[in-house]
Each structure stands twice: as C-alpha cells, then as structure tokens.
C-alpha cells in the first residue's frame, strides 16, 4: 500500500483492506481491475473524519504462519500449558495485536466457566472483555454486527449444546453476508467459540457435537483442534481469517491436555488435514478428542501387526479432501470416527466423497465408527461413545474384509 495525497494505491490487494475501508465509510473502490494475475485498484478516501487508527493493524499484521505444529522450530520458546491456557494465550494475543478485537459472551468477564478468558478483563478492560445478557441469538448477532463494521468479534457460547438459538443468525446471516451483498459487506472478523463433546457426565446438554449442522452452511468455516498447540495456532488463524468461523473446543481436554506450547504469536493452516501418524494398512480419520481414541485403537491394532495411518481433519468445513485421498489411495482402507451421531454426520460426507474419488483403490467399504442415533445419554455414555474397542473392532473387520 502506498499513499499519494488522498489516494491509497495498492497492488495484489487483500480484500481485507477493501473491507476495512468500506466498513468504516472511508470511501469507495474507485477503480478495480481484475485479471487472472492480479487485482489492483485504488481508493479515494472521501471522509477524513475517520482516522486510520492502529486498528487497521489487524489487516497487515499476523503471527508466524506454519502449516502444522510439527513445523514450528524446536528452539522456539515454549511454556507448559493445558488446553484452556493455550486458548487463553491465543485470546490474549488476539486482543493485543488487534485493538478492534472484543471478547464477549456469558460469564466471560470473571474468566469464563472453563477459565478460557481468565485475566483478560483485568488486562483489557470492560469495553473489550465483557458479559452479555443471556441470549445466544443476541451473542451471535451482536458479533455479526461488530464484524460487519470491520472490527473483530470473538463470541463465546457457553456450551455448543446452546448454540441453536444462534443458528438463524449464523446460517442465514453470517454465512451469507458477503455473498448476498456482492462483497460490499462481510463479517470475516467473527469467530464463535464453543466447548463441545463428551466430558464423562454431561448428558444431553453438555456433551453435544454440532459440527455437522454448521458444515452444511456455505459461507461458514468449522474448525476443531485436537490438542494445545493446535488449539492456539488454529484459533489465532480462525480469528484472523476473513470469514466467519465456528471454533469448537474439546471440553474434555481443557484440563487433561497439556503440552509445551510456543509462547510466540503463531498461526496454523486452515483447510489442511494433518497426518498425525503414518501407516500403510488403513487410514483412520477423525478430529478433536477422537484423535486420542484413534491413537489408542491403533496401538491395539499394532499388536496384530496392523499399521494405521491417522489423520486429523482440523478444519471440518471446508475440509482437505486431497490429504485424505492421498492416504486412502495408499492404504486402500478407511475408517471415519466421531462422537456425533453416525447418520448424516461428518463421517457420512467424508465416506461419500472418498468412495467417489478412491473407489477402485478401496479394498473394503469405508466404515463409520460414531455415536448412535440417540440423544447423548448420561448413564449409558460408557457404551454410547465410539471408544477404542469399537474402532479396533472396525479396524479388524476392515483389514480382514
């Protein structure tokens, strides 16, 4: 970007600059030329009442970008953090590097029911870290409003089980904001975070995995980390991504997952599935807490001489089909596994896409090892979950097909 008088010239422009100027009523894209090689244009600033405050920094600054956690150099300074501390750290960095960023939801001011926002109100003040009244539809819509004028909104839903009142706002509004306005308005600055998944005693309303509902709304993105380093990097990437993102956090791991997490400002790639473990006999696909289950099942299968390849989707929607295809073409066998009910879940989509692309490479049908088509039970959680024995059994059946 270079400024000559009232005109800002840019080349290879990021939409972010355009969004920023339009949302602040700073002017109009005076001329825009699109070719296959580049996009260029210039803005005429028509309203000088608005200063280009440091909040424009969010469009130019970002953390160190890595594809996967394993790409972060070992000499990078790290500190032991559990999952909620890693998320807290990510939120802290987001608020620090982007002064338009605000964090809000029910009970976030005192630190949040899972401690994810601990200390942030004290550090950034009531205007930027605050409680909202008890209304999920309000929380989502408020966040959409903030993002629609170019600021960063990090909205927290206390449990993913309570996200449904916000469904209309997220699917009918957030997802379609850019498309329906021909890119004149957008809500890229919106990130909605929610704890999801089984926790041992959650029952119907503290255990749900609603990722499939939102993965059917073009315009949204859905991201789920499996561990601490991923959580921090993917959350920062999601917050800074120029599209509305639903970020689901595995609540069972808030305290139970711990790792040496890099303290710097870094982001991990969205839309990239990671091969967590290599193997030649069968591909196991999952995300979030379920990756641990797959690892344990793979350990059992290893004793039978079966080498499993485990892939973490990371971004559920839109997902990285290429990495999955490459793996299934190699192994010829595949299992997809998640806590959410099997019918119409993410596993159904992945199975359909993989058999379309890898049919002749498959030695056995693709199996889904998932929750049953029941509400999430309390007393029966033990047998409801797609645990390591169910996955192990599916591995056996698939390999011996």
């Amino acid at each position, binding site marked *: 970007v270079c400024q000559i008088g009232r005109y800002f010239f840019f080349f290879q422009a990021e939409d972010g600059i355009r969004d920023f100027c339009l949302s602040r*009523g700073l002017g109009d894209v005076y001329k825009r030329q699109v070719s296959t090689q580049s996009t260029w244009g210039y803005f005429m600033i028509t309203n000088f009442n608005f200063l280009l405050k440091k909040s424009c920094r969010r469009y130019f600054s970002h953390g160190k970008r890595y594809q996967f956690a394993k790409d972060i150099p070992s000499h990078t300074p790290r500190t032991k953090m559990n999952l909620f501390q890693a998320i807290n750290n990510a939120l802290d960095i987001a608020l620090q590097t982007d002064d338009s960023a605000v964090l809000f939801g029910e009970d976030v001011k005192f630190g949040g029911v899972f401690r994810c926002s601990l200390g942030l109100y004290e550090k950034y003040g009531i205007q930027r870290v605050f409680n909202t009244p008890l209304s999920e539809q309000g929380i989502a819509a408020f966040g959409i*409003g903030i993002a629609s004028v170019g600021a960063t909104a990090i909205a927290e839903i206390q449990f993913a089980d309570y996200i449904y009142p916000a469904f209309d706002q997220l699917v009918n509004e957030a997802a379609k904001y*850019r498309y329906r306005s021909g890119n*004149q308005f957008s809500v890229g600055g919106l990130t909605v975070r929610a704890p999801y998944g089984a926790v041992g005693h959650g029952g119907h309303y503290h255990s749900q995995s609603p990722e499939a509902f939102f993965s059917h709304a073009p315009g949204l993105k859905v991201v789920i980390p499996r561990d601490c380093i991923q959580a921090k990097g993917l959350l920062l990437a999601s917050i800074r991504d120029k599209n509305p993102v639903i970020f689901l956090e595995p609540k069972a791991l808030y305290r139970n997952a711990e790792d040496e997490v890099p303290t710097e400002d870094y982001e991990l790639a969205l839309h990239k599935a990671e091969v967590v473990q290599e193997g030649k006999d069968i591909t196991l696909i999952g995300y979030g807490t379920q990756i641990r289950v797959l690892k344990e099942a793979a350990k059992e299968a290893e004793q039978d001489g079966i080498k499993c390849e485990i892939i973490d989707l990371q971004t559920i929607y839109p997902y990285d089909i290429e990495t999955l295809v490459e793996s299934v073409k190699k192994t010829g066998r595949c299992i997809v596994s998640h806590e959410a009910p099997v019918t119409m879940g993410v596993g159904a989509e992945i199975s359909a896409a993989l058999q379309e692309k890898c049919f002749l490479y498959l030695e056995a049908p693709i199996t889904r090892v998932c929750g049953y088509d029941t509400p999430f039970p309390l007393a029966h959680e033990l047998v409801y979950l797609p645990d390591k024995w169910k996955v192990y059994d599916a591995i056996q059946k698939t390999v011996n097909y």
Partner: protein
Amino acid sequence: IYTSKLNFDSVSEKIPTFRVIELKGKVIAKKYDNTDTATLNKIYEKMVQLEEMDMILLQAQRQGRISFYMTALGEQACTVAVAAALNDIDLIYPQYREHGCLIWRGFTIDEFAHQCASNSRDPAKGRQMPVHYTSSKLNFVCVSSPLTTQVPQASGAGYTFKLQELDRIAVAFFGEGASSEGDFHSGMNFAATLGCQTLFLCRNNKYAISTPSDEQFKGDGVASKSQGYGMLTIRCDGNDAIAVYQAVKNAREYIVKNKKPAFIEFMTYRQGDHSTSDHSILYREEEELKSWAQNNPITRLGLYLKKKKYREIDEESDKELRKKYRQETIKALKSAIEEKKPGIHELFNDVYDRQTDNLEEQTKQLREHLDKYQGKYNLKNFEQL
C-alpha cells in the same frame, strides 16, 4: 420500595404520539417548527420520487417484467425524513421497506432497476430477489428476508462506533410484526445493557402481511416494550414528516452525547399490499384504507409548505415531477431488463473471501456440464467470460 397492596395492574396510560403538523398541515408544535425549508422541500420531492417509482415497479411486476416487488406506499415519511435527519455516514440496517432512505442518499433509479432485474450491473450479482438492496457506499446494509435479524446486528455495530469514539450511529428498521421475534428482544436488551450507539426505528404500519397489530401484541404497541428495556422511548406520528425529522434528529443527538441507544415507534399505515405476492383486500376493509388515505404523508407536508409559503413545488410542477419520475423509472427498467444476467462464474464467487478447493472443483464440474449439454440450457442472456 415495598408495598402491602397486591394489585394486578398493567400500565394504564398509553404513550402519546408526537406530532408537529396536523392532517391539513397546520402546526401544533411550534417549538419543533424549525426545520430548514430546503430540507423540507427535498424531503417532499424525494417522497414523491419514492411514490412514483413504487407505482411503476409495482406495475412492472404485474406485467411479469420483474419477478417480485414491495412498495412503501403510505410510509414514505418513515424513511425519507429519517434519512434526512441522519448523517449520511450513519449505518442503516434495513428490514425491506426502507428504499426511501436509499433514494434520499442518492441511490439512482438505474441502480434500483438493476437489482430488480437481477442483471450483471447489480453489484450484488443478481444473487437475491428484487428489493433486497444494498450499498456500502451509501451506508445501507444488505436487506435479508429473515425478519428482525438486523436489529441485534445494529446493536453490535453501534457498540463498535462507541468504542471507536465515532460520531456515527447504527440504525435498525423493523416493522411491528418483526418486533415479536426474539432478535428484537435480544437486540434491544444488548443495546441498553452494553450502551450502544444504536437507534431503533419501528414502522408500526398496522399489518404483518395479513396479521393486524392487535394480534401481534396486547400491550401498548412496541414503545411500551422499549420502556421495559430501560431505553429512551418516543412514539411518533410516522405520517408527519416534520415530526419524524425532529424526533430522529433529537434522538441522534441524545445517542451520540450519552452513548446510549434510543427507540422511536412510528405510527403509520401500510397503504399497499405487503408485497406482490399479497392481496390485502382479502383481509382488510375498504373503509379502513379510505380512512387512512386521508392521512397521507406527502399531502400533509405539501399542505404545510403551501400554508407557510415555503414550497418550491406547486401543483403544476408536482404533476411534472411525478411524470418525470415515472418516465425515468420506465426507461431505467427497460434498459435494465435488456442487460445481460451476471456471468455463470458469479455463482461461485464471494462465498468466502477466497475461492476454496471444493468450490473450484464444483465450478469446473458445472462448466464441463454446460459445455457438454450446451443445447439444453438457454444461456444467451448471461454474460460470457
């Protein structure tokens, strides 16, 4: 404060309606009779433009030339005079009947026509039904069919304006029917508790499609609800352009000065059908329509201007003006309909800021399919890449 009386009571006094001029243009609120005459004349002219444009585009739908339309007949003051009182930079979150604000701010008749014709000149690339206008340049957020969703969004925007210390407010429009939705409750409550620079404007036009307002709520309209949120509340005669202007001007000042939201309920009447898919005579009486026709916002302002000798448009020039707008609209629509539709590739753009792999693949699939089955699809009206 405690009481030993057990009285079941709802509020007994109705909130009065603010009005500056009567039906025949006579001033009854001298204190507020200070709007500059140039503005009032422009409001008059733009209300006329709105009415004439509406009549032509409505006919165009009846003739099958556009697929759908919604008029703002009878409610012109609720939008044109509002926009006149706002700053151009104030961000409007509309429902779907506020194209009067766009007219005030300079949206051209061509731009209206392009959107209604869903052609390639529509900046929104023909993605939505007619009347789903948007203009970031004119600070008018995209219209969306789901009701009331814009209300809490305006709260979020107004909150951001407060944080950024801007002399700018967010304005949410909605009808009295839409105020029954949960989003209204959330939006108002958030704005009040968090202190948002947001103005809430309810067009109480007595009907939500066929549902009259006495089937929508049992309390004192929507204004009584606003009081329940602890918000500054005004009820205003929506067909009195001067009252609308004054109310909005004062509310805006209050909002920016106090960094608190405000609410205005405009009492008005939906003269036309809900939309071209509606046939309102099925559920309302001729007498009611005739009675409200006596309370026409354009006529009232015109009579005021005539009485005060402020008017720049007399009966003759009014006729000419209307004829001019009708002709301009007809011409704009004709050429808009003749334009090409947006290119097929626009189906896949703008879902995200950048194209994703799944969409790239689907673009390719569609292109291959259309190449292979060329004769089966009539694509000559679409812009070719």
